């Protein structure tokens, strides 16, 4: 009996080993966290510094935020560009949510063989890379005379197989009894959708909204092609333009980048769970 007991020396060794392991774990995680945060903190700090200080590696906040903002406002029509981004992304989100939730609900609640087949076809669109269709899309919107408009920004991504699929999958958890009961009470089919389904599925709508808004706000290649007029530019185009010159004012640049990141980071911090849900919904 006594022989099987670990000697204090071995027990001691195990304890140190465990402690070292735990220390290693935390060091690794802290390093990962530091590396993840550093570029963003540097961006924030740099937005308050003079360009010279930014490039010589100043890592403490300065007093040039106001100065940088003034320069930025002189260089670009910031309010207009910010408004363009906000308007485009908001319209895109609302349009997508309406179209895709209706379709996702329809494909689940009224499913029959034909609709299941159609859903299968629509899923194929996820295989189409944007680079492959941007030229025909550009020609299409050119012919329709819709370049530089919110419609051109919004329409190609209003209906996506991904979002329809997300809504279809989450509709499966929507109790069928509610639909039956509402029908018996004489509610119209679309009435059930708007008055029962939407309020109950709030969290699915939040998830879809976060994903869509972020994608639209960050969209770059499509607006780069279609937004040719100065007053139709969006935030990603603005900051991308600021690095085009020979001398770059890094303080001003980082302020612009901060402003372009702020909305999505705020949404992320508030609705992190929905954002994560949206990302992993493709594996459920």
């Amino acid at each position, binding site marked *: 009996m006594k022989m099987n007991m670990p000697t204090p020396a071995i027990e001691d060794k195990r304890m140190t080993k465990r402690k070292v392991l735990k220390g290693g*774990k935390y060091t690794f*995680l802290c390093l*990962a966290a530091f590396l*993840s945060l550093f570029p963003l903190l*540097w*961006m924030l700090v740099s937005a308050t510094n003079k360009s010279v200080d930014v*490039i*010589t*590696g100043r890592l403490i906040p300065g007093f040039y935020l106001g100065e940088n903002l003034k320069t930025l406002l002189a260089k670009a029509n910031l309010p207009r560009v910010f408004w363009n981004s906000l308007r485009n992304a908001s319209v895109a989100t609302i349009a997508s949510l309406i*179209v895709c939730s*209706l*379709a996702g609900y*329809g494909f689940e609640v*009224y499913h*029959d063989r034909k*609709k299941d087949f*159609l859903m299968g076809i*629509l899923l194929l669109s*996820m*295989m*189409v*890379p*944007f*680079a*492959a*269709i*941007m*030229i*025909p*899309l550009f*020609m299409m919107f050119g012919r329709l005379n819709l370049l530089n408009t919110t419609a051109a920004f919004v*329409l190609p991504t209003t*209906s*996506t197989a991904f979002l329809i699929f997300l809504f279809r999958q989450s509709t499966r958890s929507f109790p069928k009894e509610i639909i039956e009961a509402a029908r018996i009470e004489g509610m119209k*089919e679309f009435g059930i*959708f708007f008055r029962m389904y939407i309020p109950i599925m709030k969290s699915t709508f939040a998830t879809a909204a976060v994903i869509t808004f*972020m994608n639209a706000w*960050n969209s*770059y*290649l499509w607006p780069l*092609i279609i937004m040719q007029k100065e007053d139709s530019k969006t935030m*990603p185009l603005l*900051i*991308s333009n*600021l*690095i085009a010159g020979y001398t*770059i004012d*890094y303080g001003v*640049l*980082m302020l612009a*980048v901060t402003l372009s990141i702020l909305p999505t*980071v705020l*949404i*992320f*911090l508030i609705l*992190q769970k929905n*954002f994560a849900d949206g*990302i*992993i919904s493709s*594996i459920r």
Partner: protein
Amino acid sequence: MKLQKKQAMVGWGFVSSGALLIFIFYFYPIIRAFVLSFQTGVGVNMQYAGLFNYRRLLTDNLFKTSLTNVFIYLVLQVPVMLTLALILANLLNDRTLKYRGFFRTVIFLPCATSLVSYAIIFRSMFALDGLVNALLMNLNLLAQPINWIGHPWTARLLIVFALTWRWTGYNMIFYLSGLQNIDHSIYEAAMIDGAGGIDRFTKITIPLLKPIILLTTIISTNGTIQLFDETMNITNGGPANSTLSVSQYIYKLSFHYSPRFGYAAAISFIIFIIVAFLAFIQMKVGDQR
């Protein structure tokens, strides 16, 4: 019977707008791209030219360069990122870990930044007169500043760094959600049998996460093949096209030089086939689960 028919009709009402938009803005353009790829001409004056564009592809060095670049990113970046993501997810899955929520949020945070924004942050940090060179020189690790975006391999490496920073947390979230579905009692049984931490990781975690690892591999491969925002804003494809991506090449052919829509469409179609092939594998993998 009549009611059922009526409901089926209402159902079409629900799905029609979504389906129609996908046909107009995905399927019609891809067919148009296919037709365009058999035409040549500048701008909108196009003529039928048979396989001319596809034959030209075979001798186009810039196309080969851009495809090679994308595969370099793929081979260098995806394995490193997925391994890191897997290790981080495994560490964060430990319920006794302190500040777990904080670590998860912070490592996931880069996903909230737009591709253009973080590309510009990285470009600025690694500029010739930028922060990284300044710090390395202050620490006496460097005598001369490195011109990161001026040499082919440092420029590619920079893009690999940047991509890893932005997407590791994204993949970690997939693994974390997969790990949460693994029954904890499997680990407890293994611990009783005397399996160490590394054994448990390689013999339980990785095999059970295999479907998700495959899925993330395909998502990342897909994303890398379509890379655009980063190469455009970190290096602008330079130096001497050594970081040019395929999407960027298509963009330049269509909108920078005199617009060659037909030829660009031929390249687009090749990309479509590569991506469709990958997606096909993804669905096959998904079916097996």
